[in-house]
C-alpha cells in the first residue's frame, strides 16, 4: 500500500544500516521480539511487520512479531513494560497506547513516559474529513455552514468513544464552533461502512480506512488534517487551506499526526547503555 510506503520514515530504520561502533557491534546476538499491542492485520500490525522485516535485514537477526491485542493496546503495552530491559524486547507504541490509553483506560499500570525509551518514529497516519456524497456539500466551508445552520442535526462517526477519530472530530467541532451528534462504532471499518450507508454523514477517518472508498467515489474527502497535502490525495486541501485556521496550531502539538513509534521498555533506572545501542546508529 502506497500510503504505508511513503509514510514509513526511512530515517529511523535506515539508521541501522550505518556502520556500528565496535563496542556496540555485538548487540543483536539473538532474535528480537517485537510486541505489537494490537491484533494481526490491523494498521499497527501492518506497519509493525514492515518495520520488523526492515530491522531484521539490517540487524542480521530475526525480529519476531508478537501480537498481544486487547483493551486499546494497553494489555500488550503492559506486558512489554514488564519485559526484561535488555533490548531484545521492543514494542510499537501508538497514540492509543501511550497517550489516550493511560488517560482513559482505568487500571493501566505502566508509565508511558517512564517505562519506555523511544527508539524512533516509523509511521504517520493522516486523518481525512470525509462526507457521504448525498449530503450535497462539496467543500469544508459548505459543511461548516450546514452544521452551523442546523446545530446537532448531522451525525458523525468514530471508531469508538475516546478513540483518536473521536478526539480529532471533537477538536474540529471546537475549532469551527459547530455541533454534530456523535455515533460511536466498534472500529474504523464499521464507521466507514456507516458513512457509505449514510447512517452518519461525516467521518474524520484515518487514511487507511477511507482511502479506497474515496478513490472509488463512494465517499467524498473534504480536507486532510495534516499541514501538507497527502501524496495519496493531492487534490484534497489541508484544513487550513480549507479555512480552519485555528486547527493548525493544535495540529503541531501532535494530534494531527499520530506517530507509531518504536520503543524499548525499560523499568527505571533506565539502562542507558542498551537504549544507546539501539539509538546510537542514528548519529
Amino acid at each position, binding site marked *: *500500500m*502506497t500510503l*504505508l510506503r511513503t509514510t514509513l520514515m526511512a530515517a529511523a530504520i535506515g539508521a541501522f544500516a550505518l556502520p556500528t561502533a565496535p563496542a556496540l557491534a555485538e548487540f543483536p546476538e539473538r532474535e528480537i521480539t517485537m510486541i505489537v499491542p494490537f*491484533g*494481526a*492485520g*490491523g494498521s499497527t*500490525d*501492518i506497519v509493525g*511487520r*514492515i518495520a520488523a522485516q526492515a530491522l531484521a535485514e539490517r540487524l542480521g537477526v530475526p525480529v519476531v512479531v508478537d501480537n*498481544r*491485542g*486487547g*483493551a*486499546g493496546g*494497553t*494489555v500488550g503495552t*503492559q506486558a512489554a513494560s514488564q519485559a526484561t530491559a535488555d533490548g531484545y524486547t521492543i514494542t510499537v507504541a501508538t497514540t492509543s497506547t501511550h497517550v489516550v490509553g493511560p488517560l*482513559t*483506560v*482505568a*487500571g*493501566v499500570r505502566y508509565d508511558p513516559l517512564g517505562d519506555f525509551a523511544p527508539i524512533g518514529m516509523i509511521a504517520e497516519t493522516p486523518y481525512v474529513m470525509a462526507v457521504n456524497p448525498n449530503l450535497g456539500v462539496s467543500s469544508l466551508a459548505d459543511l461548516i455552514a450546514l452544521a452551523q445552520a442546523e446545530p446537532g442535526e448531522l*451525525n458523525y462517526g468514530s471508531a*469508538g*468513544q*475516546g478513540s483518536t477519530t473521536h478526539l480529532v472530530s471533537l477538536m474540529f467541532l471546537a475549532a469551527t464552533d459547530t455541533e454534530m*451528534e*456523535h*455515533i*460511536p*462504532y*466498534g472500529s474504523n*471499518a*464499521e464507521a*466507514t*461502512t*456507516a458513512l*457509505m*450507508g449514510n*447512517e452518519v454523514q461525516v467521518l474524520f477517518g484515518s487514511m*487507511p480506512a477511507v*482511502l*479506497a*472508498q474515496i*478513490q*472509488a*467515489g*463512494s465517499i467524498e474527502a473534504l480536507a486532510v488534517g495534516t499541514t501538507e497535502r497527502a501524496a495519496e490525495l493531492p487534490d484534497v486541501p489541508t484544513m487550513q487551506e480549507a479555512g480552519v485556521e485555528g486547527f493548525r496550531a493544535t495540529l503541531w502539538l501532535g494530534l494531527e499526526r499520530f506517530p507509531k513509534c518504536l520503543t524499548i521498555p525499560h523499568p527505571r533506572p533506565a539502562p542507558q547503555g542498551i537504549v544507546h545501542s539501539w539509538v546510537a546508529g542514528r548519529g
Partner: protein
Amino acid sequence: MYGGSTVAILLNLPGTAASAVVALDGHAMAKQGRAGPALVITTLSSFFGGCVAIVIVSAFAPPLAQFALRFQSPEYFSLMVMGLLAAAILVQGPLLKGIGMVLLGLLLGVVGLDSISGMPRYTFGNLHLFDGISFVVVVIGLFGLAEVIHNLSLSGRNQAFTKPVPWRELIPTKQDMAASSLPTLRGTALGSFLGVLPGAGPAIASFAAYAVEKRVTKHPEQFGKGAIAGISAPEGANNAAAQTAFVPTLTLGVPGDAIMALMLGALMVHGLTPGPQIIQNNPEFFWGLIASFWLGNLLLLILNLPVVGLWIRLLAIPYRILFPTILAFIAIGIYSLHRDPFDVYLVMITGFVGFVFIKLRMEAAPLLLGLILSPMVENNLLRSMLISRGDPMIFVERPISAAFLAATLVILAVVVAGSIRRWPRRPTPTPTNQGRNHP
C-alpha cells in the same frame, strides 16, 4: 470452517459458534457409534454450501454489497433479535429454558468496556476482562471441559463411546443422504444470504439453519439426539456464509470480522487495495481468489473423506488415556490464545458451570449466540436510538427492520401456539414425563 466440526463431532470440542451447533447432533451421533456418517455428511454439506456460495460471490458480489449497505444499526438490531429467538428455539424441552440461556449469554457479553460510554463493566479492575469474556474460553469450557467432567462422572458407563467402529459403518446410508439433501439446500441458502452481513452473519446463519430445520421437520424430537438434518443444515450454512463473507471485504473494502481484517492486511502488504474497484482494477486477483475458493473446497473433500476412518479410530482410544490428552490440549490451546494463564483459570470455571448445565439439562448453545451477539445487539440498539434522537419508532418505520421484527413475532406466536395446542393432548409414555413440557 470444516476442521472445527471434526473435533466438535468426535470430542464435543467446538471452536466456533457454528461448530457448536454442529456438535449438538454430531456428537450425539458419535456417541451412537455413527461418527463416520456424521463426518462424511458434514464434509459433503460443507462442500456443497461452499460451492454454491462461490457461484453467488462471483456472479452477484456488487449488488450483494449494495444490499449489505442497506443494513444499518436498526436493521442489525432487529435481525439479531430474530437470531436470538431462533437460538432459543433450538433447545430441547421448554422454550423458557432456551430464552433463559440466551439472556444469560447476553449478560455475560456485557462484561468489558462499554463501547458507547467507554466505561469498564464487571471487570473488577482486571485488564484481562476489558475486552470481555473470550468466546473460545466459554465454548471450550461449556462444551469440551464439561463433557470430560460429565463422562468421568459416569465412570464406566460410556462404553458405547469407545467401542471400535467397523469400517463399513463409516459410509452414510441412502436414508442418511436423502435426509441431508434438503436441509443442506436450505442451510446453504440461509448461509449465503446472512454471510454477506459483516460481523454477525456466519454465527446467526448456523443457528437459524438449525432452528429452521427443527421447525420444518416431521420429527423435531430427534433433534439433539443425532438428527442428520441437525448437522447438514448448519454445516452447509456456515460454509456458505464463510464464502459470502468475502463480499463486503472485497467490494466495499471493509472487513467483516477478524479473519477478513487479516485478509485485508495481507492484501495491503502486497500493494493491493481492496475496495469498490478491486474487481475492475485487479480482475486477475479477483478471479484467482475465486479459483482458490474452489480449490480449497475441493481439497477439503479430498483430504477429509479418506481420513474419516482414521479420525474414528480416535474414539477407540480408552477414555482414561483420551481424557488427559483432551485436558492437555484444552490447556495449551486456551493458553496460546493470549499467552495468559488467566484464560486457563477462566476455562476451568466455565467447564464446571457447563457440567452443572448438563446436570440441569440446560443446553449451552443458545448461551453462545447470546454471548457473541450481546455487544452487537447493545451497540446497534444504542446507535439506533442515537440516530433517531431517542425515538423507538425507528425500528418499525424502516421496512427491512420492520420485516425482521414481524418475522420474530410470527415465530414466537407459532412456537407458543404450538406448545399450548399440543400440551393437553400430548401422549405420556411414562408418568414422570407429565408436566415436564409445561409451556
